[in-house]
């Protein structure tokens, strides 16, 4: 079984997320960022924490004169255990992206949001 019903479009507004516990080995988190849907495995590659219960947040960038800039608010997921930051759109870590989580395809069929665990987000984009 590769397809999972996530919810209705009008019940899943931007800035919210859902966990599909029966999908994949550890469950899959689905996120609505600005009207686009993204799905990642509920498993942190660091120590195996349930990643998708972490906070959705942003991250910092260095500005001129030691300024610290806040950016990408709503696109970064922090692991509940050690606060590792992940880019929800790509599954890659925000620090040197040597670690990544599995991403999955999400599509809209009529009013239904469907998670497809047979394909990655990258395959969907291609």
């Amino acid at each position, binding site marked *: 079984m590769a397809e999972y019903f996530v919810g209705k479009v009008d019940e899943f507004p931007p800035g919210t997320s859902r966990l599909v516990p029966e999908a994949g080995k550890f469950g899959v988190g689905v996120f609505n960022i600005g009207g686009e849907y993204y799905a990642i495995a509920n498993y942190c590659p*660091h*120590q*195996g*924490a*349930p990643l998708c*219960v*972490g*906070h959705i*947040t942003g991250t910092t960038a260095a500005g001129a004169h030691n300024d610290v800039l806040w950016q990408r608010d709503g696109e970064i997921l*922090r692991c*509940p*255990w*050690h*606060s590792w*930051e992940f880019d929800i759109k790509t599954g890659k870590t925000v620090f040197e992206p040597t670690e990544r989580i599995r991403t999955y395809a999400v599509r809209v069929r009529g009013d239904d949001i469907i998670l497809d665990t047979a394909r990655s987000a990258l395959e969907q984009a291609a």
Partner: protein
Amino acid sequence: MLETVERTSPDAQEKAVTLVDTDVHPVIHSRQDIIDYLPEPWRSLDYGPRAGGGSVIARIYDPPDTALTKGMRTDSFPPRGGAPGSDPEFAYKQLIEDDGVDLAILMSLQARLRANAEQEAAVIAATNSWLADVWLGEHNKHGRFYGSIRICPDDAALAVEEIERWAGDPRWLQIYMTPETTPAFGNPKYHPIYAAAEKHELPLAIHIIRPMGQRLLTPVGYPAYFHEHSAGIPLYYASHLASMVFEGVFEKYPGLRIVLVEGGFTWLLPLMWRMDAYWRECKSEVPALKRAPSEYVRNHVRFTTQPLEESDLSAFRKLCEWTDAENMLMFSTDYPHFSYDDPKWALNRFPKPIRNKIAAENAIEFYGLPTTVSAA
């Protein structure tokens, strides 16, 4: 009426202790929990109408997104409310049931450091009383929790008083103090503490607390960043350890046993090399020492695992072999803090033949813990 003591068959109900967690952090649920244990004048100072409620928060404790996480595992906030580590039943669920920890050694950081040692000792004593009644009392019918008698190292007389207040009570496994102070722990001002620990055959653990102000030390002053401070934590431990070795503490108190908690261990081998080299080159400076410094360390000091270094695995395993991690280390999680180590992840980093020793056997031997627990 005579009470009936129910006895169950130990064979059917017991399971072997295979995982001991040597570093767990309980806190109070609300300030009401602690007020009654704190005598005047300290009670009014912390909890009087114009006081700050015992909160000493002007310190560097700013791990990522502190406003959201409070520096905790974010899945450790108890469903019934309160701070992580404030609900003994929920801690039991996460640690004992979910993580498979058989026995947990509690080290409460509830009492924060104070500028005044007498006040700090009073707040620490109140916390010990609360821990005894709550976590080691009404919420310890399962017998999985053991306590650490916290003391204030800056006033040895009060520290010894606190040790004497609890010594002999089997719920307490060890004494514990925080290292953010001067002078280093080899100094004679601390020796009455070591004498008391030796007398009661209680190990003495050392655990960081990240205090406020000038006591947030590094060997070169005040750190600018949380990460900078955290990466440098081993420097506290290395400095105190070298001081204890060269001031002859282990020669003077041959029964003293030390546990360095949450300070890492990968720095130990080069420190022992250097200490041994200087001892050989100029032993006449420290005539009290009868053995090589590394021998005192191996005979008297143990280390807990968390936070485990996350280096390349083969390099890590080589270092474990060279350091004799098999005999020096005891597993710990640091639950519920954000620097928590998951037991499965942490133990798998060690070579398979030494995992059981680090997971439980070393702690059982060091602390004299039971080898089985009730399986219920």
